[in-house]
C-alpha cells in the first residue's frame, strides 16, 4: 500500500498519479512492493541479487515504469536491473529514484541498469532523481547505466537531477553497434554544498553508428560539478558532445569532454562552455516585467528544459 509520501515521490520522479500504466515495478526501501507484468513484457525479481529482470519480446510496444523510492534514514539500497528490449520493440521506460530522508543519517541508493536494445528496437529512457528531507541527513544517489545498442537500434536517454541530491556519481557506459543511434540528454542542477560527478563513455563500434550527448547543468551556491564525457569511434561513426554549464555564486564546474577516433572516416565534435547568466538575458526578461529573481529562474528553467 502506497502512502501519501510514496505517491508524492512517485509523482516527482515518474510523473505518476496513481497506478502506472503498462508494466511496472515499484521498489521501496530496498524491497519490491508492487509489480505487474504484461503479455510480452515480463518483470521478474532476481534470485541471486537485489533487482529485477525486464524482458520485452520482439516487436512489443509499451510503457514500463520501474521507480525506486527511499523513505527511511540510514538506509543504503543497492539494486541491479537487467533490461532486455527485444528486436524491433518500441518501449518507453521510466526509471528514477526519489529519496525522502527524515533523519540525520545517510540515505543512499546505488542502482545499476544493464540495458540491451536489440536489433531495430527503440527505447526512450527517462531517469529522474529527486531528494528531500527536513533534517541534515545526506541524500546520495549513484546510478550506473550500461547500455548496448545493437544494429539499427535507437535509444534516447533523458537523465535529470534537479536539486535535492547531496552527492551523486553518475556513470553511463554505452556501446553503439553498426547503424545504432544514441541520443543522451543530461540535465543537472546543484546548490548549497552538493556535488555531482558524471562520467560518460560512449563507444561507437560500427558503420553509421551515431551518438549525440547533450549535457546542461546549473551550479549554484557552493556546489561542485564535474563532467567527463568521452566519445570513442572505433569505426566510421559520427558523434557530437555538447556540455553547457551556467555557473553561479561560489560554485565550481569542471568539464572535460574527450573525443577519440580510431578510424579515418569517423567524425567527432565536442563543445564545452561554462559561463554565468548573461546580463542582457536578465535585462530582456526584466523588460517583460519579470523581477531579477523570476528572470533568473526562467533562464535556468529554459536552459535545463
Amino acid at each position, binding site marked *: 500500500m502506497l502512502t501519501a509520501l510514496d505517491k508524492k515521490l512517485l509523482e516527482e520522479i515518474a510523473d505518476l498519479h496513481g497506478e502506472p500504466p503498462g508494466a511496472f515495478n515499484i521498489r521501496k526501501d530496498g524491497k519490491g512492493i508492487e509489480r505487474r507484468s504484461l503479455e510480452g513484457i515480463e518483470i521478474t525479481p532476481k534470485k541471486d541479487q537485489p533487482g529485477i529482470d525486464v524482458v520485452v519480446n520482439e516487436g512489443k510496444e509499451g510503457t514500463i515504469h520501474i521507480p525506486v523510492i527511499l523513505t527511511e534514514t540510514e538506509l543504503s539500497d543497492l539494486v541491479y536491473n537487467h533490461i532486455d528490449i527485444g528486436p524491433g520493440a518500441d518501449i518507453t521506460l521510466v526509471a528514477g529514484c526519489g529519496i525522502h530522508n527524515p533523519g540525520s543519517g545517510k540515505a543512499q541508493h546505488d542502482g545499476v541498469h544493464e540495458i540491451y536494445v536489440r536489433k531495430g528496437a527503440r527505447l526512450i529512457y527517462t531517469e529522474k532523481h529527486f531528494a528531500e528531507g527536513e533534517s541534515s541527513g545526506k541524500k546520495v544517489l549513484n546510478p550506473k547505466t550500461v547500455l548496448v545498442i545493437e544494429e539499427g537500434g535507437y535509444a534516447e536517454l533523458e537523465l535529470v537531477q534537479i536539486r535535492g541530491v547531496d552527492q551523486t556519481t553518475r556513470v553511463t557506459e554505452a556501446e553503439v553497434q553498426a547503424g545504432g543511434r544514441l541520443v543522451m540528454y543530461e540535465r543537472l542542477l546543484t546548490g548549497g554544498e552538493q556535488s555531482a560527478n558524471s562520467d560518460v563513455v560512449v563507444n561507437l563500434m560500427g558503420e553509421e553508428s551515431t551518438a549525440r550527448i547533450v549535457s546542461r547543468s546549473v551550479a549554484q551556491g557552493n556546489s561542485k560539478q564535474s563532467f567527463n564525457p568521452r566519445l570513442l569511434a572505433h569505426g566510421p561513426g559520427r558523434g557530437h558532445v555538447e556540455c553547457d554549464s551556467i555557473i553561479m555564486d561560489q560554485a565550481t564546474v569542471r568539464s572535460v569532454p574527450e573525443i577519440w577516433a580510431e578510424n579515418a572516416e569517423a567524425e567527432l565534435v565536442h563543445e564545452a562552455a561554462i559561463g554565468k547568466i548573461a546580463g542582457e*538575458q536578465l535585462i530582456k526578461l526584466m523588460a517583460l516585467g519579470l523581477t531579477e529573481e523570476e528572470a533568473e529562474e526562467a533562464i535556468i528553467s529554459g536552459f535545463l*528544459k
Partner: protein
Amino acid sequence: MLVLENIHLELETGEKKVPILNDVNLEFEAGKMYALTGPNGSGKSSVARVAMGIYRQTKGRVLFDGEEISELGISERARKGIGYGFQHPPRFKGMPVKDMLELAMKYSDNVNCQVLRDIGLCPDEYLERTLDNSLSGGEIKRIEIATLLAQNPRVRIFDEPEAGIDLWSFEQLINVIGSSHREDTTTVVISHQEKILNMVDEIILVEDGTVSMRGSREEIWPRIKESAECSCRYSCQLGGEIYADCPR
C-alpha cells in the same frame, strides 16, 4: 505619456566616464508614432534604454503618466506599461519561443499566437523552436518584435526593428507596427529607414547625444538630407532614394 526631462547620461568604459546623452528633453504623447533617427553612436538606443530603466541617467527625470519613475527599475517600468524591443536580442539556450511569448503575456491580456503570424512566422513551426543559434538573426529579430507585440505595452519602443530583416518581412513589419498602433498607445521606432520615417507623426533627430531637431517629416527631412550631403554621416546606414545623391 512618457517624458524625458533634462536627461544626461555618462557611461563608464574602464576607468573613464564617457558622456552619452546631453540634456535630452522629449515628450511622447499617447496615440502618436515617433521615429528616433540619427547617425550611429548618436545616442538613440541610449535614450530608449534610459526610458526603459536599463541605463540610469546621471541627471534629469523620467516621467510616465505624470508620475516620476526615475527611481523605478526595469521590471517596474515594464509593469507600468513601457516596452522595449531590443536591437540585438539575446539568445536563450533551451527556451522555446512559446515560453518567451508566455512570459511577455504574463502582464498583458494579449493572449494569442497571432503575433507570430503578424510578423510572418508560422506558429506551428516556431512555437517549439528554441531561441538559440538554430534560429537566424532575422528570425530572432522577428520573434523579438512578436514578443513586444505580445507584451502589448502602452509605450512601445522598437530599436531598429528592420535590422537583419529581409525586404519581404520588412513590408510585413511596417504593416504590423502601423496596424497594432492604437489611440492609447505610444509607438517609438528607432530607425534609419525611409519607409518608417514616412509612417510616423513626428521625427526626432538625435546627434551627438542630444536632440538636434524634431518635427514632421516635411519639417525635418531637408535637415536630414542636408546633414547627409554635408558629412555623409548617414550614407552608409541610410538606404532609399533620398540618399541616392549623397556625394560619397
